[in-house]
């Protein structure tokens, strides 16, 4: 059990992020949940790279065992792409707020449906 401890923690964080995305209707909270989900995926990738007794992957004559640098590289890219996604999502949220007047998913859907009903009634 202890050997898979990190995997269990990572899965809990991942699923908590998934719960926030699906269960909450506020757009900003959904984006925060998305970034939590992404952060837990970083943990998922980096924890298998760690070698007990190893050190950070900076070559130096004093150490022989290094932790695996490959996941670090992939996750560095992932972090920056994640913040780019967050920024674009927030820009969309701001525009939605200006267009609909609210950032709650239910209210936005209700506004959309009422507009569709009005248009359907007008065209008859």
């Amino acid at each position: 059990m202890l050997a898979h401890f990190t995997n269990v923690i990572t899965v809990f964080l991942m699923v908590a992020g998934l719960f926030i995305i699906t269960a909450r209707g506020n757009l900003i909270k959904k984006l925060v949940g998305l970034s939590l989900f992404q952060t837990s995926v970083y943990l998922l990738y980096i924890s298998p790279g760690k070698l007990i007794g190893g050190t950070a992957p900076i070559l130096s004559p004093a150490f022989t065992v290094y932790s695996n640098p490959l996941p670090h590289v992939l996750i560095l890219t992932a972090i920056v792409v994640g913040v780019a996604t967050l920024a674009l999502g927030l820009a969309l949220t701001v525009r939605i707020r200006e267009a609909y007047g609210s950032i709650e998913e239910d209210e936005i859907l209700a506004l959309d449906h009422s507009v569709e009903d009005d248009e359907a009634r007008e065209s008859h």
Partner: protein
Amino acid sequence: MRDDLVLRVVGRLLIPAILLFALYVQFHGDFGPGGGFQAGVMAAAGIVFYSLIHGLVTTRRIVPDWAVETMVAAGVLIYASVGLAGILLGGHYLDYSVLSSDPIHGQHRGIFWVEVGVAVTVCGVMLKIYYMFASRGGAED
């Protein structure tokens, strides 16, 4: 917030340190933790901190819009031209070992310029995003 003494003093102490540290992280990325992304984000964070204290208008005078937009594009161009330089000097795209007579020195040069390109783009994009968000809240037309 310009009138708050504590913020002004702390800003005077911290902002040069942040910018200097960003430069350090950029150029020592080969020997310690660091590199282009971290340096770009830290430099942008320093300038955002300045703008939180002294206001967006002052910051726009120091780092004007055209400079930020040029930074956004210039970084990608620097990166791509390092790759093209590899082709022009006889190797593959993004092949660093032909950039200098000694292949190891060529690697150093290539990595240096590539990291500069990455840092410039990341700093420019973060600053531009902050400018866009902060200036949006003015009079809603």
